[in-house]
């Protein structure tokens, strides 16, 4: 496991808009006041990141390209043996007999199987193409600041896991204290990659049948990977949640928090302000503060007592 952060907490929530970005961004603001050795928030919703919008940040400090391997074939060395075609899992390589292979960029996942299988070593090791971008922002709040690392995937690309992994690696390299991960939407293997190495996973749900279904999907992955979890029931009060609580118990979830439904939330959103700043006395803000406080105490061990302020 690459060194870097002392602790990793992931916030996830399945497919629907349960509010994981809402929880992640507000937690980041609250925790930045408490963590003294640095907080990095990683937005891994590479198809449509929005943490930078929720936090109302300006231009990024820098933008770097996410490059992935792309087979550049040396036609002088290529004997048209077709081994690369057979090795390609995604069907990105085709070859007419006697002619050099052709690669569909958008189907290529950058896995390098073709490079390793080529008996003539005719594929360059350093061929690359741009899959997406990583934008790094400094978020300044009440005199404290934290970094936001946001990944995007280029239009037309279908394969998100490589972009998720690249953005997360970049965020891990930048982090020395707490790395907070907004995994983005989904329940596929991209989410597994996003929550990898988490010390704690926070699963955000809502009291609806869709929320229940998403919660089960997420908990299956989290418990399968053996990570600890807490559940946050967002928009508490809009519907029944007994089944959600029962499900959480079944999967060994350690704690359940409830954030009451608040009509103030969309107002804060449209102003690009986290609710804990826009309306700190709102019950939703209070609930988020309780979560942040408990999380800071929980992480004291990993971050060191000196790393956590006013817990």
């Amino acid at each position, binding site marked *: *496991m690459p060194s870097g952060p002392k602790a990793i907490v992931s916030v996830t929530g399945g*497919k*629907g*808009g349960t509010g994981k970005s809402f929880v992640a961004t507000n937690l980041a603001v609250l925790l930045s006041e408490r963590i003294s050795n640095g907080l990095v928030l990683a937005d891994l919703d590479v*198809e*449509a990141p929005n943490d930078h919008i929720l936090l109302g940040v300006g231009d990024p400090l820098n933008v770097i390209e996410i490059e*992935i*391997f792309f087979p550049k074939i040396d036609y002088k060395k290529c004997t048209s043996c077709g081994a690369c075609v057979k*090795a390609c*899992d*995604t069907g990105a390589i085709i070859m007419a007999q006697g002619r050099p292979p052709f690669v*569909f*960029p*958008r189907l290529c*996942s*950058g*896995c*390098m*199987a073709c490079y*390793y*299988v080529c008996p003539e070593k005719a594929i360059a090791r350093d061929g690359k193409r741009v899959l997406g971008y990583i934008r790094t922002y400094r978020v300044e709040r009440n005199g404290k600041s934290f970094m936001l690392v946001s990944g995007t995937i280029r*239009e*037309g690309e*279908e*394969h998100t*896991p*490589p972009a998720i*992994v690249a953005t997360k*690696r970049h965020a891990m390299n930048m982090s020395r204290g707490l790395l907070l991960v907004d995994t983005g939407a*989904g*329940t*596929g*293997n991209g*989410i*597994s*990659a996003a929550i*990898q190495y988490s010390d704690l996973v926070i699963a955000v749900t809502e009291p*609806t*049948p*869709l929320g229940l*279904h998403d919660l089960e*999907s*997420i908990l*299956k*992955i989290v418990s*399968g*990977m053996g990570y600890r979890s807490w559940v946050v029931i967002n928009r508490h009060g*809009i*519907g029944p949640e007994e089944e959600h609580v029962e499900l959480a118990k079944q999967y060994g979830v350690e704690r359940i928090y409830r954030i009451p439904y608040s009509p103030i939330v969309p107002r804060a959103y449209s102003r690009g302000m986290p609710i804990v700043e826009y309306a700190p006395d709102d019950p939703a803000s209070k609930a988020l503060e309780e979560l942040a406080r408990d999380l800071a105490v929980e992480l004291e061990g990993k971050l060191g007592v000196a790393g956590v302020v006013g817990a």
Partner: protein
Amino acid sequence: MTTVQGQVELVVASGKGGVGKSTLTSTIALVLAKHGYRMVAADTDAEAPNLHLALGVNTWDTVEDYLEGRIAYIREDKCTQCGVCAEVCVYGAVEVVNGKHRINPYICEGCLTCSLACPEKAIRYRFKIKAGEIRVARRTRYGFPLVSGEITPGRPNSGKLVTEVKNKAKEILGGDGIVLIDAAAGIGCQVISSLTGAKIGVLVAEPTPASLSDLKRIHTLTRHFMIAPMLVINKYDINEEFVSEIEKYARENNIPIIAEVPYDDNVPKALSQLKPLVEAYPNSPASKAMIEAAEYIATEVFPDWKKWWSKYKPKKPAPYIPIIK
């Protein structure tokens, strides 16, 4: 029973999810059933199947496992812990646990790279992984059957699962009738799989720049497959100015707009109650607009769909230009 000629696929598609596809598809299903059409509904949005919720289905008659793909594992007896596999895996699937290298089955996509790079040839594969489920309700409360696909959490998306769901639906219908398909979201293999074989398309868009760009992409796909499309604009009142951009695109491309649906709080409410919108809140604004769209389909497109298809089909298939850069 109103008859149609042959077995015809109608697909409801939108590009990215979250624009109200399932609610619209459920409305179309109910109205078609009311008009007496022989039909089957298929939910191919396997990453987030919602159609059964929108139709109030919560038990299945059969649930079949869908098996696909392979996951790598390291043979401990051959592994020298050299770490090459961890370096080459672009997904970061190789972890070190208690000093031993181990492949995380929730992340591995089975691509072959690590086994090719391993100097000891210590990596093997498990096959026939459970990648999803195909669920069947033989007779919903409204009379027609429903087939729904779902990807197993932690597994990658699959175009083949979509195919299997559609094949199952067609098998259950057996004979003439309408196959009503709720398409997969996104733009990848699973979307292409949802669209192939369809003749009629109902495209759904919201008045946002992102949704318009999704609409253009999905429209290019329908043009490629010679699918005759129509358009529903959902939540039109969230940005009335942008609606005219969408209307302009539709006009320029001979896509009839069959309804403009306002934003309606009752839509998520009905979903929470596991009831179709038009049953739970029949007089709500969104209900009325969606029923208008569904009635158009039930009376103008069907039963004589070939005539409608000839009128609105693309003039010629859109050529595909592979994206090189």
